[in-house]
């Protein structure tokens, strides 16, 4: 009986080598086999659901002050207590997730697209385009990232605008580097030469042949990069040159709570934990997606 079981149930975590002509598991069952993908997905989904439904979950206004009940410890009414102005901490925490995650996603859209476009063009066509792109990316890499962020944030004034401008300026570099490298190596593949002899134009080879092969890797990089963007948003908020109060933001929350470290340590710790939680969720998701796509090909 024991041997029978061993023959029929594949070991957990191993992917049996499939003979050509058969298909591996698809869709949901394949996703379920990757713990990192599941964990990251569930963690992020939970946060997003909370952020979307917080007006119905919490009876409190995130900016309404109630000085009669300030600095309260966690209770049944205030799940995570209240801050120095009597605002409900849980409500502010989740509204801050709205602010910070929203800016994070928006700030990455343009860099993601432009970076991939620049990288593809440079990697596929090579020549002087490639030379210029490498020169620019290498120069930017040599700069300390936060120096650029802080300079641009100062120059453009506090708020989300500075963050958007910074990432439009420097965010594309990561994606350009990744897609340039991949495009340059895929260009040597014979299916690209075949597409050329079939008389397909360059734009079509870029969009239909190279892009689908680069996108998975770029999305994995996007996940890790978003963690960096989030930390940058929070850092700017903490330094007072990011999101302006009273808009809830994890960075300003951490900074505000600092004065009450000895009496109400959770004021800083909870938003700090939220940043770590989101970071872990995104990293797991990135790892899981990489795993998923690696198994597929």
């Amino acid at each position, binding site marked *: 009986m024991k041997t029978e079981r061993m023959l029929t149930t594949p070991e957990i975590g191993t992917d049996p080598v499939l003979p*050509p*002509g*058969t*298909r591996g598991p698809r869709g949901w069952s394949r996703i379920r086999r990757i713990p990192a993908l599941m964990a990251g997905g569930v963690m992020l989904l939970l946060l997003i659901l909370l952020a979307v439904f917080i007006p119905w979950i919490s009876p409190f206004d995130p900016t309404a002050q109630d000085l009669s009940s300030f600095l309260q410890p966690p209770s049944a009414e205030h799940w995570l207590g209240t801050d120095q102005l009597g605002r409900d901490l849980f409500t502010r925490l989740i509204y801050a997730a709205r602010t910070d995650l929203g800016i994070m996603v928006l700030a990455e859209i343009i860099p993601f697209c432009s970076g991939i476009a620049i990288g593809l063009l440079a990697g596929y066509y090579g020549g002087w385009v490639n030379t210029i792109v490498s020169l620019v990316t290498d120069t930017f890499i040599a700069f300390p990232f936060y120096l650029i962020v802080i300079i641009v944030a100062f120059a453009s004034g506090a708020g989300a605008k500075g963050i958007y401008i910074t990432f439009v300026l420097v965010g594309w570099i990561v994606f350009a580097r990744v897609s340039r490298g991949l495009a340059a190596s895929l260009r040597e*593949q*014979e*299916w690209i*030469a*075949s*597409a*050329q*002899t*079939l*008389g*397909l*134009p360059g734009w*079509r080879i870029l969009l*239909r*042949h190279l892009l*689908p*092969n680069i996108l998975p890797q770029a999305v994995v990089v996007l996940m890790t990069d978003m963690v960096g963007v989030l930390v940058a948003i929070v850092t700017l908020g903490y330094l007072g040159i990011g999101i302006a109060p009273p808009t809830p933001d994890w960075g300003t929350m951490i900074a505000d709570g600092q004065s009450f470290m000895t009496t109400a340590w959770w004021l800083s710790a909870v938003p700090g934990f939220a940043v770590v939680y989101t970071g872990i969720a995104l990293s797991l998701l990135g790892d899981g997606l990489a795993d998923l796509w690696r198994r597929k*090909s």
Partner: protein
Amino acid sequence: MSADLRIEHVQVRYGGFTALHDLTLHVPANTTLGLVGESGSGKSTLARAVAGLIVPAEGRMTLGGRALDKRRSREQRKQIQMIFQNPDASLNPRHSVRGILSEALLFHKMTRGRAQTEQRCRELLEQVRLPADSLDKYPHEFSGGQRQRIAIARALSVEPELLIADEPTSALDVSVQRDVLELFLEIRERLKLTVLFISHDLGVIHAVSDTVAVMRQGELVEFAPKERFFVRPETEYGRELLAAVPKMPIAAGSAERNLTF
């Protein structure tokens, strides 16, 4: 459809290195030129130059009397198709077989409507003897030999006049090599194609060629009808190549019969 290929004084340089020196060749319509030579001899460079994948520094090429420009038009590219050595790299891993076979058909508007495209894809699969249900599969679901068949079907989709085969069987298992080669010969006869066939395997060259060209260090050292080359090679290098073939008694006089693939 078939056309002759004429290569006149073609020279290819990579930076300071000259990969092809002043090469002149003629492949008559509906014949096969077998191109042999050790690696680095310029065989693949010649193939890629003919296919328009690299631009020669000097010289001119014509196909069926019409000049092939340095910057090829889409029409000119379509006339010459290439089959590559490595079946793992010759198909886009993210495209289904239907996508691979229909892409050029749709782009060049060679078929009208969905039904006709589907019909043409099935015909192409039939030509390379693959089942019609292959259309929805992806390259990783096929063996090396099957992938090479798909690559052949893709090349045929644009109805080329000249087919370049760059070591199409050397990455395959010996048992599969024969099948793919037989298929290749059959298609060549049926479609009356002019072929440039590259191989370092003299047995294969003997089986497919009408004419044999021997290359060494970017130059053409021997260019002769197959019968003459395999019996009486003109150059010392040609004799060396033939002598290097294992277990093939060239000197025995019955070379013709023993040299099979």
